[in-house]
């Protein structure tokens, strides 16, 4: 019978207290690994959000606010910038491409982004990857929309379907652009960035939604009948229902006919856009044009370098994630101290067991090894259980994290850093286990074969 075997049987004998210790360690390991994995994945998807863009230009605001609103669709840009300024800056020497961005509308909680065809040509994410179409193609005219993969997945949208977008942001919108339905002509491949949760429309579509024709129609249109009596309202409701129903049938049957549209104007005559992305022929132009934009007289503008601002933003979040990691590290330490308490408190009761082992020839070093191997066993089992719980948590929480926070967690093997963390826990467990082992060693030296309990 090896010492490990003996240690295992001894642990089984004290299963209640050992199980509690084991679960404490397992939960702390799960917590540590989960925080670490979410941190890594968040950092990964964060830094992958945009690449290949040299400058982002918007109305004068904070760098981070501009980045958040234009790239992450978080918060709202307070002001837009005029189309004239955009045209002027676009015409500067060295500018390779520009992507105008107009935000502010939403569809069932997903952002609607107005742009032109440059968006699909020049927008880069991850390692300078271009946007790829899972189905369909870019928009050709103002009645078309290209949706991100998450939008398609969550709303069960398909190619050729007609949808309406709402004015304003958020899930609940009180102002529907029912008069301007858009046909889904493209569904993008997943990118793991906010693009997945965005509906892309031409700038002209945005203009049409907010144009004078729309407002007139809207104020006099069917929706206003809700101000009338109940009968009308019910009637309208029924009508809407039937209408939607018919539409669904139409979509199924005329699915691909909608895609054979004629190319039209994508831009229209916008007065303002939210921001625009810029790429230069040479990096040399970046700082020069940025300086020029920042001192641009006709309008107060801000130009940010997304890489720099991303780093700034991450360094702000870095403190939070480090504090989280520190907390989970402390939780692990507390769980290991819990193990120390359990082992120490049981030690006095186990002096009899140690004396028995001494009487059958166990040397103090055997007692030390036995006690240490118990701690190692508990820590190792705790770590294994913790890893199992961690994977279980990932499987369960994956969807929620993706849906609520946009963090896509991949179920993969433990990274070398995560293995290193487990190694540190194992070493700490062994060191902590050595404390009662040293005590047991001296007990066994003093007690010998006689039991003085």
């Amino acid at each position, binding site marked *: *019978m090896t010492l490990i075997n003996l240690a295992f049987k001894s642990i089984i004998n004290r299963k209640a207290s050992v199980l509690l210790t084991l679960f404490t360690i397992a939960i702390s390991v799960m917590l540590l690994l989960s925080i670490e994995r979410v941190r890594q994945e968040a950092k990964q998807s964060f830094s992958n959000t945009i690449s290949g863009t040299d400058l982002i230009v918007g109305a004068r605001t904070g760098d981070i606010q501009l980045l958040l609103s234009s790239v992450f669709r978080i918060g709202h840009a307070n002001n837009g910038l005029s189309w004239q300024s955009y045209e002027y800056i676009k015409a500067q020497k060295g500018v390779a491409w520009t992507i105008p961005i107009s935000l502010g509308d939403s569809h069932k909680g997903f952002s609607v982004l107005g742009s032109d065809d440059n968006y699909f040509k020049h927008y880069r994410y991850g390692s300078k990857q271009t946007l790829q179409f899972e189905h369909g193609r870019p928009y050709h005219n103002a009645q078309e929309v290209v949706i991100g993969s998450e939008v398609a997945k969550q709303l069960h949208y398909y190619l050729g379907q007609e949808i309406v977008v709402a004015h304003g942001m958020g899930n609940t919108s009180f102002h529907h652009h029912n008069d301007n339905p858009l046909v889904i002509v493209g569904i993008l491949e997943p990118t793991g960035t906010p693009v997945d949760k965005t509906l892309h429309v031409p700038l002209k579509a945005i203009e049409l939604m907010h144009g004078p024709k729309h407002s007139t129609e809207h104020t006099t249109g069917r929706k206003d009948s809700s101000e009338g009596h109940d009968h009308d309202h019910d009637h309208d409701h029924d009508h809407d229902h039937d209408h939607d129903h018919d539409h669904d049938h139409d979509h199924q049957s005329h699915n691909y006919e909608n895609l054979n549209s004629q190319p039209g104007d994508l831009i229209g005559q916008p007065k303002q856009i939210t921001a625009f992305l810029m790429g230069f022929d040479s990096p040399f132009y970046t700082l020069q044009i940025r300086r020029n934009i920042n001192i641009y007289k006709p309008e107060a503008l801000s130009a940010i370098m997304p890489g720099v601002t991303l780093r700034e933003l991450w360094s702000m979040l870095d403190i939070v994630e480090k504090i989280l990691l520190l907390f989970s590290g402390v939780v692990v330490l507390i769980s290991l101290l819990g193990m120390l308490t359990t082992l120490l408190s049981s030690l006095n009761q186990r002096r009899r067991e140690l004396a*028995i082992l001494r009487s*059958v*020839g*166990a*040397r*103090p070093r055997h007692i030390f090894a036995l006690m240490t191997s118990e701690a190692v066993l508990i820590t190792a089992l705790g770590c294994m259980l913790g890893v199992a719980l961690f994977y279980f948590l990932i499987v369960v929480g994956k969807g929620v994290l993706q849906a609520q926070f946009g963090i896509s967690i991949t179920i993969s093997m433990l990274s070398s850093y995560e293995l290193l963390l487990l190694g540190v826990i194992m070493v700490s467990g062994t060191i902590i286990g050595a404390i009662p082992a040293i005590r047991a060693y001296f007990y066994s030296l003093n007690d010998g074969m006689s039991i003085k309990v």
Partner: protein
Amino acid sequence: MIQISDLTFSWPGQSNPTLQIKDLQIKTGERLFLHGPSGSGKSTLLSLLAGIQCAQQGNIKILNEDLSALNDAKRDKFRADHIGTIFQNFNLLPYLSPIDNVVLGCNFSKRRQANLKTEGATATSQATRLLDELGLDENTQHRAVNELSIGQQQRVAAARAFIGRPELIIADEPTSALDADNRDIFIRQLFEQAQQYQATILFVSHDASLAPLFDRKVSLADINGASL
């Protein structure tokens, strides 16, 4: 087998010695009954013989090995290799089966394992045989230790002492928890095993009525100069 000469031992912090034995010789294969009232130094003598404690003066030789010349580790090894102990309260590990408790007896001794190999036995087969010989059936051998009767537990403790053929068996009041019938049966079985395994028995008890069963009786009170 055992030679004790001019032995003096005091517990730390005590001015008077606990044990002072001028001379005690035990022959190989002898069954010696060491008698003494409580507090006469029986346990102290046993811990000296087992090499747990070291005498301040004089020497103890077991199998011609001077224990005082050995360091702690070597004394531990010597005990594991050559001495089997049966305790008053059996000292079985409750989380091991009777078989595992017996096997534990040769777990820490390479010499005992080698002895088993010479006999062509494994630790488990030898443990099973010892328990069989001591009257524990196969079903009992795999039950939980705390489900066994006192007599059965004592036999498991005896089997543990004998496994791997140690030369010396120290029995420290092993029959104090047994009734007279079981006590005699146990001692008879002990002698049978000792004969079979050619072991010397040092039986310690305060119960002088057991003395006639043994080859020789020694009263610790008579030989311990400290208590005179």
